[in-house]
């Protein structure tokens, strides 16, 4: 029983990380109509930067957020401007951003070598910290990832539903021309949104750096999970992404406990297919954008 509980808890928490990794892609896809594979590179790049900052300057991994997030917001802004100049549509974006992904990956390998990089326990106070409720452990790093995912999702929800900017985003997502007619500058909206989503990916990178060992090939392994979360949650739906992340995390966790780790991917993707067949618009019917 305690075993199952632990499986569920770690599933829920890791779901937070999945959500965090998926937010950026989900938003840019749902709201900007750009399937941006480069986000995988941003997550990885941010993780490597966190590693570097921590190792070279002995910074607390969490403190690096202060540098990482603004930096990647800027990256996102620039990238959106580039996409805008290049008139990248939803379809082309897949190829273009895949090109960018390859480029970033090789740059990472040339910079940090192909070998494994890890923030040693000495510099990483969060690596294995966790607190307990009964016999069930709540790993600190994962918990932080989960909470920040929740906070971001909540913030995005409020942003989209309560603020003028949010309405502008919806308007742009539905019909840029109409939005322009109502005095919304689609490009500005897009640029800000792209900055945000890139920053979210970067944040995911921070927690990856804290919890995992880095190597250039890491990013490709995320495709399956992240796309499952994005679709399950509904394009551009931040809250949906969190729910989806948790569902997938828990499903995989429970499957691992009951039928062994090999069953986990099967269960995950069967859930995805089921969701695609019966709720293609995502779990939460209210699609916040798109």
């Amino acid at each position, binding site marked *: 029983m305690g075993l199952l509980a632990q499986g569920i808890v770690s599933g829920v928490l890791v779901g937070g990380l999945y959500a965090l990794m998926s937010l950026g892609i989900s938003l840019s896809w749902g709201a900007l109509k750009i399937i941006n594979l480069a986000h995988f590179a941003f997550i990885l790049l941010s993780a490597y930067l966190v590693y570097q900052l921590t190792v070279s300057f002995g910074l607390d991994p969490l403190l690096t957020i202060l540098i990482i997030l603004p930096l990647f917001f800027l990256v996102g802004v620039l990238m959106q401007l580039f996409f805008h100049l290049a008139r990248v549509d939803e379809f082309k974006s897949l190829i273009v951003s895949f090109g960018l992904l390859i480029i970033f990956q090789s740059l990472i390998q040339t910079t940090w070598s192909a070998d494994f990089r890890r923030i040693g326990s000495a510099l990483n106070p969060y690596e294995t910290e966790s607190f307990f409720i009964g016999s069930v452990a709540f790993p600190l790093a994962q918990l932080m990832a989960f909470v920040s995912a929740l906070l971001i999702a909540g913030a995005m929800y409020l942003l989209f539903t309560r603020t003028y900017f949010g309405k502008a985003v919806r308007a742009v997502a539905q019909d840029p021309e109409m939005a322009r007619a109502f005095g919304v500058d689609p490009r500005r909206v897009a640029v800000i949104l792209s900055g945000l989503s890139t920053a979210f990916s970067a944040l995911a990178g921070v927690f990856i750096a804290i919890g995992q060992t880095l190597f250039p090939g890491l990013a490709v392994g995320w*495709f399956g999970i992240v796309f*499952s979360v994005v679709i399950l949650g509904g394009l551009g739906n931040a809250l949906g992404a969190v729910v989806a992340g948790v569902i997938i995390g828990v499903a995989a966790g429970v499957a691992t406990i009951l039928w062994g780790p090999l069953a986990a991917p099967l269960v995950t993707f069967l859930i995805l297919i089921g969701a695609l067949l019966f709720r293609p*618009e995502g779990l939460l019917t209210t699609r916040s954008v798109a």
Partner: protein
Amino acid sequence: MTGRARTLIGFVVVGTALGLVPNLEEILTFPRFYLIFLFTIFFWVAQASSWNILTGYSGYFSFGQGAFYGVGVYTASVLVGKHGWSFITALPIAGVVAGATGLVLGLVVFRVRRLTGEIFALTTLAVAFVLASVARLSPSIDGGTGIFMTGTAVPEVLGEFTTAVYRLTLLIALVAVVTAYLIHDSRLGWGLFAIRDDEAVASGLGVPTFRYKMIALGANASLAGLMGGLWSIQLGFVTIDDVFNIRVPLFVILMSVLGGMRHWMGPVVGAVIITTLADRLNSAGLADVNQIVIGGMLVVLALAVREGVYVRMRRRWGTTAITFFGVLVVTIVLGINESLISDFAYAMVATVVVMLLPERAWDQIRRFFGRREPGAGDERAEGLTRTGS
């Protein structure tokens, strides 16, 4: 109609010519690697062309290529590697099983109206993951130990290993391209184009959308699986993670987009370009640069050539031919490279560069030669116009 006859004859000629290459090996004394290089291209031509039948023609964007390829690889591997079937009997079965997989998938997804666009794309992606997990779980398929295909016997009549693989890949590639071509210039093809543009309207005009989509998916899956089954002996040691990964689906997309998805020749051109570049850059020992340049090419070509390289080549076929063969001859005569493939790569790169020259530069060139060719505006229309019109 005569146009079609000519094209079909063209296929026969090209096919026989390529088919004879191994026989010329002794006479021309070219390195055996040329055969491997060519059949690698054939592999990708078949994959990209078959993918384009579904995605390029009907507009249903599929990540399923990896799944169909994987089913093909594993069908052949299990039959040959685990049950000792003869490879040549297992091969067609690989195609059939993959095709069946495609049709089952189609029965489900094409019945769900909302399942279009990216949702369809990701369903197909998920299917690949599920199949991989199934292969993991079931020892009768793989169960993680992998399957050895090294030393698989190929029929004597096809020659020794490399030659046999060459001839088979060529055959399958031809089948794929001819299929793509015949569909392209038929009611089926036009029905698919109509579906791509506006499925509702198409069915309103009498296009049997469901059946046509099933046919396209079936053709795509079985061709992909057939080539997959063949490729299992090239892999030598078949493992889940080498087979069911993102490589095949991504590369067919890149190749088709690069070459152009509206015309049956597009994927062929794309496959040739990307395979050659990857091979030559790698052989230059520039592992990282290789990746970066490929990435850069993708970005820039995707942005610069809206309709795909092939459409421009078709518009400027004269220039294309002159540049390509010009550079080819020059490099060969001057003996710049040790390898014919490098000469080929140079010629190809030069051609692509010329294709990329912006319209304004073109007009000047034309004015210089005092020739009139269609202007910039026609490119789109040109992209639309197909044989028959």
